[in-house]
Protein backbone atom coordinates (compact mmCIF):
# COMPACT_ATOMS: atom_id res chain seq x y z
CA UNK A 1 0.00 0.00 0.00
CA UNK A 2 1.16 3.54 -0.62
CA UNK A 3 2.58 4.80 2.68
CA UNK A 4 3.22 8.22 1.10
CA UNK A 5 -0.54 8.76 1.49
CA UNK A 6 -0.05 9.12 5.24
CA UNK A 7 -1.80 12.27 6.42
CA UNK A 8 -3.26 12.90 2.98
CA UNK A 9 -6.73 12.74 1.56
CA UNK A 10 -7.26 9.49 -0.31
CA UNK A 11 -10.83 9.89 -1.52
CA UNK A 12 -13.51 12.54 -1.56
CA UNK A 13 -16.94 12.25 -3.05
CA UNK A 14 -20.48 13.56 -2.88
CA UNK A 15 -23.05 10.94 -1.89
CA UNK A 16 -26.77 10.52 -1.47
CA UNK A 17 -28.14 8.15 1.17
CA UNK A 18 -30.63 6.80 -1.34
CA UNK A 19 -33.73 5.26 0.21
CA UNK A 20 -33.47 2.32 -2.17
CA UNK A 21 -29.91 1.67 -0.96
CA UNK A 22 -31.13 1.65 2.61
CA UNK A 23 -33.71 -0.93 1.61
CA UNK A 24 -31.17 -3.07 -0.29
CA UNK A 25 -28.75 -3.02 2.64
CA UNK A 26 -31.53 -3.92 5.05
CA UNK A 27 -32.29 -7.02 2.95
CA UNK A 28 -28.58 -7.92 2.96
CA UNK A 29 -28.37 -7.64 6.75
CA UNK A 30 -31.18 -10.14 7.08
CA UNK A 31 -34.80 -10.80 7.82
CA UNK A 32 -34.88 -9.10 11.22
CA UNK A 33 -37.17 -6.48 12.70
CA UNK A 34 -34.25 -4.05 13.09
CA UNK A 35 -32.39 -4.45 9.79
CA UNK A 36 -33.76 -1.16 8.42
CA UNK A 37 -32.58 0.68 11.53
CA UNK A 38 -29.16 -0.96 11.33
CA UNK A 39 -28.91 -0.14 7.62
CA UNK A 40 -29.42 3.54 8.45
CA UNK A 41 -26.37 3.38 10.73
CA UNK A 42 -24.16 1.28 8.47
CA UNK A 43 -25.23 2.41 5.01
CA UNK A 44 -21.72 3.22 3.82
CA UNK A 45 -18.40 1.44 4.17
CA UNK A 46 -15.75 4.15 3.84
CA UNK A 47 -13.32 2.31 1.55
CA UNK A 48 -16.03 1.52 -1.00
CA UNK A 49 -17.86 4.85 -1.18
CA UNK A 50 -16.34 5.38 -4.65
CA UNK A 51 -16.43 1.66 -5.52
CA UNK A 52 -13.80 -0.71 -4.17
CA UNK A 53 -11.62 -0.48 -7.29
CA UNK A 54 -11.14 3.26 -6.78
CA UNK A 55 -9.88 2.64 -3.26
CA UNK A 56 -7.61 -0.20 -4.38
CA UNK A 57 -6.14 1.92 -7.17
CA UNK A 58 -5.65 4.96 -4.92
CA UNK A 59 -3.91 2.99 -2.18
CA UNK A 60 -2.33 0.29 -4.38
CA UNK A 61 -3.55 -2.22 -1.83
CA UNK A 62 -2.54 -5.71 -2.95
CA UNK A 63 -5.82 -7.62 -2.69
CA UNK A 64 -4.01 -10.98 -2.75
CA UNK A 65 -2.32 -10.04 0.53
CA UNK A 66 -4.88 -7.70 2.07
CA UNK A 67 -7.11 -8.35 5.06
CA UNK A 68 -9.67 -6.16 6.73
CA UNK A 69 -8.24 -6.08 10.24
CA UNK A 70 -10.65 -3.79 12.01
CA UNK A 71 -13.49 -1.38 11.55
CA UNK A 72 -15.20 1.11 13.77
CA UNK A 73 -18.01 3.55 13.35
CA UNK A 74 -18.85 6.54 15.50
CA UNK A 75 -22.27 7.80 14.58
CA UNK A 76 -23.90 11.02 15.75
CA UNK A 77 -27.20 9.93 14.24
CA UNK A 78 -28.46 7.47 11.63
CA UNK A 79 -28.35 8.53 7.97
CA UNK A 80 -31.64 9.88 6.65
CA UNK A 81 -33.19 8.60 3.45
CA UNK A 82 -32.22 10.70 0.44
CA UNK A 83 -30.00 13.14 2.36
CA UNK A 84 -26.93 14.53 0.60
CA UNK A 85 -23.51 13.96 2.10
CA UNK A 86 -19.86 14.42 1.42
CA UNK A 87 -17.40 11.68 2.31
CA UNK A 88 -13.69 12.29 2.71
CA UNK A 89 -11.09 9.68 3.55
CA UNK A 90 -7.63 10.33 4.97
CA UNK A 91 -4.87 7.82 5.71
CA UNK A 92 -4.27 8.40 9.42
CA UNK A 93 -1.66 5.76 10.25
CA UNK A 94 0.81 3.53 8.47
CA UNK A 95 3.00 1.06 10.30
CA UNK A 96 5.14 -1.98 9.53
CA UNK A 97 5.29 -4.89 11.94
CA UNK A 98 6.75 -8.35 11.40
CA UNK A 99 6.85 -7.79 7.67
CA UNK A 100 3.19 -6.78 7.55
CA UNK A 101 1.87 -3.32 6.69
CA UNK A 102 -0.97 -1.75 8.62
CA UNK A 103 -2.92 1.17 7.20
CA UNK A 104 -5.62 3.05 9.08
CA UNK A 105 -8.09 5.06 7.01
CA UNK A 106 -10.53 7.53 8.52
CA UNK A 107 -13.67 8.48 6.62
CA UNK A 108 -15.93 11.34 7.62
CA UNK A 109 -19.49 11.73 6.39
CA UNK A 110 -20.77 15.30 6.59
CA UNK A 111 -23.83 17.12 5.35
CA UNK A 112 -23.36 20.01 2.90
CA UNK A 113 -23.78 22.31 5.95
CA UNK A 114 -20.78 20.65 7.57
CA UNK A 115 -22.62 18.54 10.18
CA UNK A 116 -20.58 15.45 11.02
CA UNK A 117 -22.96 12.50 10.80
CA UNK A 118 -20.51 9.65 11.10
CA UNK A 119 -16.81 8.83 11.29
CA UNK A 120 -15.38 5.45 10.38
CA UNK A 121 -11.91 4.13 11.05
CA UNK A 122 -10.86 1.15 8.99
CA UNK A 123 -7.67 -0.89 9.35
CA UNK A 124 -6.26 -2.89 6.45
CA UNK A 125 -3.42 -5.34 6.85
CA UNK A 126 -1.18 -6.29 3.97
CA UNK A 127 0.63 -9.55 4.68
CA UNK A 128 4.26 -9.97 3.68
CA UNK A 129 4.78 -11.28 0.12
CA UNK A 130 5.27 -15.05 -0.04
CA UNK A 131 8.86 -16.06 -0.85
CA UNK A 132 9.15 -17.49 -4.38
Amino acid at each position, binding site marked *: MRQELLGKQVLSTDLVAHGI*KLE*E*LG*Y*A*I*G*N*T*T*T*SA*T*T*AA*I*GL*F*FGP*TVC*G*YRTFVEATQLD*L*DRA*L*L*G*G*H*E*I*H*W*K*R*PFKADEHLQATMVMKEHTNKNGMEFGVFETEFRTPAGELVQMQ*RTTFIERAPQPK
Partner: protein
Amino acid sequence: MKQIQQQLPPLSLEQLVRFAGAVQDFNPIHYDDAFARSAGLPGVIAQGPLTFLVALDALVAANGELESGQFQVRLKAPVTPGAPLGLTCSTEGDVELTAGQTVALSGRVSGGAA
Protein backbone atom coordinates in the same frame (compact mmCIF):
# COMPACT_ATOMS: atom_id res chain seq x y z
CA MET B 1 -25.77 -2.48 27.24
CA LYS B 2 -28.02 -5.48 27.71
CA GLN B 3 -26.27 -8.77 28.29
CA ILE B 4 -26.68 -10.99 25.24
CA GLN B 5 -25.93 -14.62 24.52
CA GLN B 6 -27.77 -15.80 21.46
CA GLN B 7 -27.54 -17.77 18.26
CA LEU B 8 -27.97 -15.83 15.02
CA PRO B 9 -29.12 -17.20 11.67
CA PRO B 10 -26.18 -18.26 9.46
CA LEU B 11 -25.32 -15.93 6.61
CA SER B 12 -26.52 -17.06 3.20
CA LEU B 13 -24.80 -16.64 -0.16
CA GLU B 14 -27.78 -14.52 -1.18
CA GLN B 15 -27.00 -12.07 1.64
CA LEU B 16 -23.37 -11.82 0.47
CA VAL B 17 -24.48 -11.06 -3.09
CA ARG B 18 -27.06 -8.54 -1.92
CA PHE B 19 -24.41 -6.83 0.21
CA ALA B 20 -21.93 -6.77 -2.69
CA GLY B 21 -24.50 -4.94 -4.77
CA ALA B 22 -25.49 -2.55 -2.00
CA VAL B 23 -21.92 -1.39 -1.28
CA GLN B 24 -20.41 -1.96 -4.75
CA ASP B 25 -17.82 -4.44 -3.47
CA PHE B 26 -17.49 -7.04 -6.21
CA ASN B 27 -14.39 -8.84 -4.98
CA PRO B 28 -15.06 -12.40 -6.27
CA ILE B 29 -13.96 -14.02 -3.01
CA HIS B 30 -17.43 -13.07 -1.78
CA TYR B 31 -19.45 -14.87 -4.46
CA ASP B 32 -17.23 -17.12 -6.63
CA ASP B 33 -16.39 -20.32 -4.76
CA ALA B 34 -13.73 -21.51 -7.25
CA PHE B 35 -11.99 -18.13 -7.17
CA ALA B 36 -12.07 -18.05 -3.37
CA ARG B 37 -10.53 -21.54 -3.17
CA SER B 38 -7.83 -20.56 -5.67
CA ALA B 39 -7.01 -17.67 -3.32
CA GLY B 40 -6.39 -20.14 -0.50
CA LEU B 41 -9.68 -19.63 1.28
CA PRO B 42 -12.02 -22.43 2.38
CA GLY B 43 -14.57 -21.11 -0.11
CA VAL B 44 -16.62 -17.97 -0.40
CA ILE B 45 -16.34 -15.76 2.67
CA ALA B 46 -18.59 -13.00 3.94
CA GLN B 47 -17.56 -9.38 3.58
CA GLY B 48 -16.10 -8.10 6.85
CA PRO B 49 -18.44 -5.10 6.89
CA LEU B 50 -21.45 -7.43 6.49
CA THR B 51 -20.28 -9.50 9.45
CA PHE B 52 -19.88 -6.21 11.33
CA LEU B 53 -23.44 -5.14 10.47
CA VAL B 54 -24.99 -8.49 11.38
CA ALA B 55 -23.41 -8.20 14.82
CA LEU B 56 -24.53 -4.57 15.11
CA ASP B 57 -28.07 -5.55 14.10
CA ALA B 58 -28.29 -8.03 16.98
CA LEU B 59 -27.06 -5.30 19.35
CA VAL B 60 -29.66 -2.85 18.02
CA ALA B 61 -32.37 -5.50 18.40
CA ALA B 62 -31.42 -6.08 22.04
CA ASN B 63 -30.93 -2.46 23.04
CA GLY B 64 -33.44 -0.57 20.94
CA GLU B 65 -32.50 2.02 18.37
CA LEU B 66 -29.08 3.45 19.20
CA GLU B 67 -29.51 7.09 18.21
CA SER B 68 -25.79 7.70 18.55
CA GLY B 69 -22.95 5.43 19.44
CA GLN B 70 -19.71 3.67 18.68
CA PHE B 71 -18.99 0.14 17.54
CA GLN B 72 -15.35 -0.87 17.24
CA VAL B 73 -14.25 -4.35 16.22
CA ARG B 74 -11.30 -6.44 15.23
CA LEU B 75 -12.02 -8.99 12.55
CA LYS B 76 -10.26 -12.18 13.58
CA ALA B 77 -11.42 -14.87 11.16
CA PRO B 78 -13.56 -15.07 8.04
CA VAL B 79 -17.20 -16.14 8.20
CA THR B 80 -18.43 -18.63 5.62
CA PRO B 81 -22.07 -18.88 4.51
CA GLY B 82 -23.94 -21.47 6.53
CA ALA B 83 -21.65 -21.34 9.57
CA PRO B 84 -23.63 -21.17 12.82
CA LEU B 85 -23.23 -17.74 14.40
CA GLY B 86 -23.30 -16.87 18.09
CA LEU B 87 -23.19 -13.43 19.64
CA THR B 88 -22.34 -12.44 23.18
CA CYS B 89 -22.30 -8.97 24.71
CA SER B 90 -21.51 -8.05 28.30
CA THR B 91 -23.18 -5.23 30.21
CA GLU B 92 -19.92 -3.29 29.70
CA GLY B 93 -20.38 -3.61 25.93
CA ASP B 94 -17.73 -6.23 25.17
CA VAL B 95 -18.89 -8.07 22.07
CA GLU B 96 -17.84 -11.36 20.50
CA LEU B 97 -19.23 -13.05 17.40
CA THR B 98 -18.38 -16.70 16.79
CA ALA B 99 -18.72 -18.67 13.56
CA GLY B 100 -18.78 -22.32 14.53
CA GLN B 101 -16.05 -22.70 17.16
CA THR B 102 -14.04 -19.72 15.86
CA VAL B 103 -14.12 -16.15 17.13
CA ALA B 104 -14.80 -14.13 14.01
CA LEU B 105 -15.08 -10.69 15.54
CA SER B 106 -14.52 -9.07 18.90
CA GLY B 107 -14.97 -5.50 19.99
CA ARG B 108 -16.87 -2.99 22.00
CA VAL B 109 -20.14 -1.14 21.61
CA SER B 110 -21.54 1.90 23.36
CA GLY B 111 -24.40 4.17 22.63
CA GLY B 112 -27.58 5.85 23.66
CA ALA B 113 -31.10 4.77 22.84
CA ALA B 114 -33.46 7.15 21.11
